[in-house]
């Protein structure tokens, strides 16, 4: 029963992630004064990519790419699975244990590493440049991300009255939420939420920080040599990353507790849409792409220092 529910939830989330990508294109088109593609366009793109057949580049290490893509899919499913979703009584977690917040952070790092591996396995100048840029972006945004998660978990343990050894578990966060109501009401949590929101574009490689896959300068970066079903998996992975991150932000910080399961489900779909518009669409509409050193400097100086400050405030 649980497994069936989980699989159904995964299917709903993945279709919703494609629809969110379509809404993103539609909204950007409207902001630019165009009609834009229909909102199901990304599903059509995905299906189309499954139909394409061709020869892979001879220098590409095909088996490495395949293994990396499977690992990436597993990591994406893992990232979604550790998050609490709408169950019959409140929220429900498939993979629940002490330290699942770490698993979530690890899954995100793993997805970025999959991009790196695919890029280096491509053995084309474009893919290698994309992979090395992804590494530098990973270093610059992963440090604030981990620091914020530490601050977040510690604050949640303090609020919910849990023991210190459970600071990296979702259940302590949920416990804290049941006491506070909505988690962003707490000032430390609000700070953590804002930092995570700023980290968002880099986590999901949205436009100001899509430096690794700059399609105009290094033709889609790490995926330049892929096509057909492999490219479709990359395409799905990008959407999975976007929905996992925005669903993480929604379910931890913004979702209200104590609703009927269908209201919770609808609200979480709506909330992921709003958050993905905030971290993906609006930056894409209003800004161009940064250079790699600008991006790295931005994340190390802005959210990096802010997360350090937050950590000091939490432990003080």
């Amino acid at each position, binding site marked *: 029963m649980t497994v069936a529910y989980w699989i159904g939830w995964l299917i709903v989330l993945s279709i919703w992630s494609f629809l969110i990508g379509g809404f993103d294109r539609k909204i950007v088109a409207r902001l630019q004064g165009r009609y834009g593609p229909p909102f199901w366009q990304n599903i059509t793109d995905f299906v189309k990519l499954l139909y*394409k057949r061709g020869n892979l580049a001879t220098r590409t290490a095909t088996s490495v790419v395949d293994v990396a893509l499977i690992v990436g899919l597993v990591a994406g499913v893992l990232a979604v699975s550790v998050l609490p979703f709408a169950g019959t009584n409140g929220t429900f977690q498939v993979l629940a244990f002490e330290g699942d917040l770490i698993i979530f952070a690890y899954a995100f790092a793993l997805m970025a590493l999959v991009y790196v591996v695919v890029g280096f396995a491509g053995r084309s100048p474009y893919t290698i440049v994309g992979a090395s840029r992804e590494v530098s972006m990973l270093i610059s945004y992963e440090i604030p991300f981990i620091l914020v998660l530490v601050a977040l978990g510690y604050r949640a343990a303090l609020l919910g009255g849990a023991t210190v050894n459970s600071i990296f578990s979702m259940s302590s966060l949920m416990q804290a939420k049941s006491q506070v109501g909505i988690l962003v009401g707490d000032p430390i949590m609000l700070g953590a939420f804002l930092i995570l929101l700023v980290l968002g574009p880099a986590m999901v490689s949205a436009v100001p920080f899509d430096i690794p896959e700059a399609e105009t300068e290094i033709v889609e970066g790490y995926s330049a040599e892929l096509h057909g079903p492999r490219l479709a998996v990359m395409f799905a992975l990008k959407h999975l990353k976007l929905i996992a991150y925005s669903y993480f932000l929604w379910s931890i910080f913004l979702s209200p507790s104590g609703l009927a399961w269908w209201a919770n489900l609808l609200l979480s779909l709506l909330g992921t849409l709003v958050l993905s518009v905030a971290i993906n669409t609006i930056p894409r509409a209003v800004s161009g792409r940064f250079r790699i050193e600008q991006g790295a400097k931005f994340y190390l100086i802005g959210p990096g220092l802010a997360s350090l400050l937050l950590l000091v405030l939490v432990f003080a």
Partner: protein
Amino acid sequence: MTVLKPEKSLWIYHLNTGSCNGCDIEILAALTPKYDAERFGVKLVGSPRHADIVVATGPVTAVAKESVLRVLEQVPDPKAIVVTGVCGITGGVFRGGYSLAGPLDTLVPVDVYVLGCPPKPEGIMVGIIKAAEVLELKRRGMYTKEVVRVSEKGEVLDAVR
């Protein structure tokens, strides 16, 4: 179901084989808000391996010939080739020049021709939509196209399948 129809998603790759940039600007114009080709699912991609439709401009110069053939080989099937502008169709004002390796359809099968010097953006959009029909026929295996060798005066010399 139009949602699951592959021909509703057209990723185009813009291939310049030695053009004067006139047609390239018009292709770009077809993607701007004024014309908005993205309504039909058109997206400009940077890598030929992601493309469904190759929009080629320019007469194929002798230097560009090898690269052009390599790029067209990298496009996965089913693919369609649209030639934009009269230079790509017959050589245009460069016909018979010593530095040309012939117009594109003497090298590979070309599916749609968009006439004009340069064509209007609407013409390029119509050409891309026609190429989508070609793609659908190709997916069902109902489409054949010959490479037609045409002399400088427009006479058909021979047809190589």
